């Protein structure tokens, strides 16, 4: 095949960086645990945000991988191991979410108001008719859904990976067609359960509020963060002398995905906001009322960063082919998408008091500091898991039927 470097090894320096970041994350978690003034509510919220954000990146990778098979895409054939490596994080992401949910169920925190059993009791002063009416949805059925997510995502990911490695050993069209069928099946599964996981894990924080666009908005965020991470990883690997046959056209196409899905996210974010803002119905508007009252600057800042930066910087063809542009824009909007998940969670859990009452500049800085420290800790863990999986198999699937077409990709 002529690939000089098929086996990836984690450079010692990168390994040190990953462990350094993880150490910073643990330190930040300890600092956060001590400094937190919300009885642990905000600390758990940050854990949920970090867990969900990186689970979302890996779920985006699983979705994109299945999409490539279902749509018979050829140009991504030689970079598909990158997506396999990214979705190998799914079990860890799910485990973090599970810890947060179980802690909520045992009343360690009160992120999920509906986990309080007294809201279902008609004789209790806490009785809440709107939640009590959804008792079936939030009862045992909730944990059934969680079990379906865990089982489904893990099993699909394992099958894709297993067949992909088998293909390296013995080329067979049958294996490819199996992947194709399973990819199509996964898209159907994901259409349903990417929606409900967004409801269950994030939207149910604002229990009284609901929006049919919410799951699409969360899903587009998953997809765009996945494309950013994959693009940056591919560029990094190319810089290290791997992927010699990944050419300008592949980079250009990854840039297009980054640009296009940023626009999808912006469209969905704005449509959800605009329709609710315009109709101004009390039961709908609560979500944005909390954000308007306490987070006006951050809310619009996150939206404009995630919309305007990729739009104006990446719109030109030359920009999408320029590695420096992709790296910088990608790094910025990766962080601002993390802030987007922060905006989806914290206003619902802490209502503007996440740093305590009337925090000064120093205190806000401290709390933002350990919040980002935990994000960096998870980032280090994520990068390490991805690179470790990448080092366990050939970097390019040598027997993929579309490999030749992918190597000759030209746009």
């Amino acid at each position, binding site marked *: 095949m002529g690939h000089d470097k098929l086996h990836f090894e984690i450079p010692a320096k990168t390994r040190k960086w990953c462990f350094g970041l993880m150490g910073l994350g643990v330190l930040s978690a300890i600092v956060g645990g001590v400094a937190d003034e919300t009885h642990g509510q905000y600390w758990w919220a940050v854990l949920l945000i970090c867990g969900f954000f990186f689970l979302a990146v890996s779920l985006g990778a699983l979705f994109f991988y299945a999409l490539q098979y279902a749509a018979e895409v050829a140009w991504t054939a030689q970079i598909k191991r990158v997506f396999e490596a990214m979705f190998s994080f799914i079990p860890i992401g799910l485990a973090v979410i599970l810890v947060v949910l179980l802690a909520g169920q045992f009343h360690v925190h009160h992120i999920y108001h509906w986990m309080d059993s007294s809201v279902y009791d008609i004789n209790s002063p806490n009785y809440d008719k709107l939640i009590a009416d959804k008792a079936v949805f939030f009862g045992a059925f909730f944990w059934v859904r969680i079990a379906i997510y865990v089982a489904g995502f893990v099993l699909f990911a394992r099958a894709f990976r297993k067949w992909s490695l088998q293909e390296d050993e013995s080329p067979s069209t049958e294996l490819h067609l199996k992947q194709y069928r399973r990819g199509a099946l996964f898209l159907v599964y994901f259409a349903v359960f990417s929606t409900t996981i967004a409801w269950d894990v994030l939207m149910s924080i604002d229990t009284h509020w609901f929006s049919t666009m919410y799951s699409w908005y969360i899903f587009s965020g998953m997809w765009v963060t996945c494309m950013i991470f994959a693009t940056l990883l591919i560029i990094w690997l190319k810089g290290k002398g791997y992927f010699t046959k990944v050419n300008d056209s592949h980079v250009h196409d990854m840039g297009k995905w980054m640009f296009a899905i940023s626009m999808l996210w912006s469209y969905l974010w704005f449509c959800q906001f605009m329709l609710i803002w*315009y109709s101004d119905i009390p039961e709908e508007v609560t979500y944005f009322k909390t954000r308007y009252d306490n987070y006006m600057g951050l809310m619009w800042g996150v939206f404009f960063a995630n919309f305007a930066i990729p739009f104006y910087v990446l*719109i*030109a063809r030359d920009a999408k082919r320029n590695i420096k542009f992709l790296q910088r824009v990608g790094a910025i909007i990766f962080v601002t998408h993390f802030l987007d998940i922060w905006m989806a969670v914290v206003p619902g859990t802490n209502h503007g008091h996440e740093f305590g009452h009337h925090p000064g500049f120093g205190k806000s800085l401290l709390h933002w500091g350990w919040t980002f420290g935990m994000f960096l800790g998870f980032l280090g863990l994520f990068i390490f898991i991805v690179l470790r999986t990448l080092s366990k198999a050939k970097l390019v699937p040598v027997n993929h039927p579309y490999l030749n077409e992918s190597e000759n990709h*030209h746009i």
Partner: protein
Amino acid sequence: MANKVFHVMYDDDQKLMDAAKALVSQGIRVKEVFSPFPIHGLDPVIGVKRTRLAICSFMYACTGTALAILGTWYFMVSDWNWNIGGKPNFTWIENAPAFVPVMFEFSVFCGAHGMAITYLLRNGTLPGMPASNPDPRTTDDKFVMEITTDDNNLSASDLEAKIRATDVYELNIKDY
């Protein structure tokens, strides 16, 4: 010396592509290619510059956005304050989210129409304009390459010999 124009016809886009590569590598300048469809990767071979149509489109779309802002401000705020569902209607900026769909649609409208009209004008292919292709078969299944002696420092016979060396389907030579 009179200018001689060679209309070199090929019956396959790949043959034309190979011929163009062979001729260009001998320093011959290909003036124009007529083809029923775009030939992938031909532009850099015959030295066609990258189109600036995308830049035009961006400018048309910006014009559209500006016009939509001006329009919504004048119709909805300045000329008569429309009160729709109690929305703030005394400043443009407070009501801006409601105007975003208009701004979006008008940007797309101006960008797309401006681009299409520019394209048709630039290529001389507006409806009713005379066709500029030398042979009607280039709208069917034939591909024509136009080479002139004026563009090339070669005698007509040398040029013809080099052209004949490629996989030609038909060659028409005209004097101008």
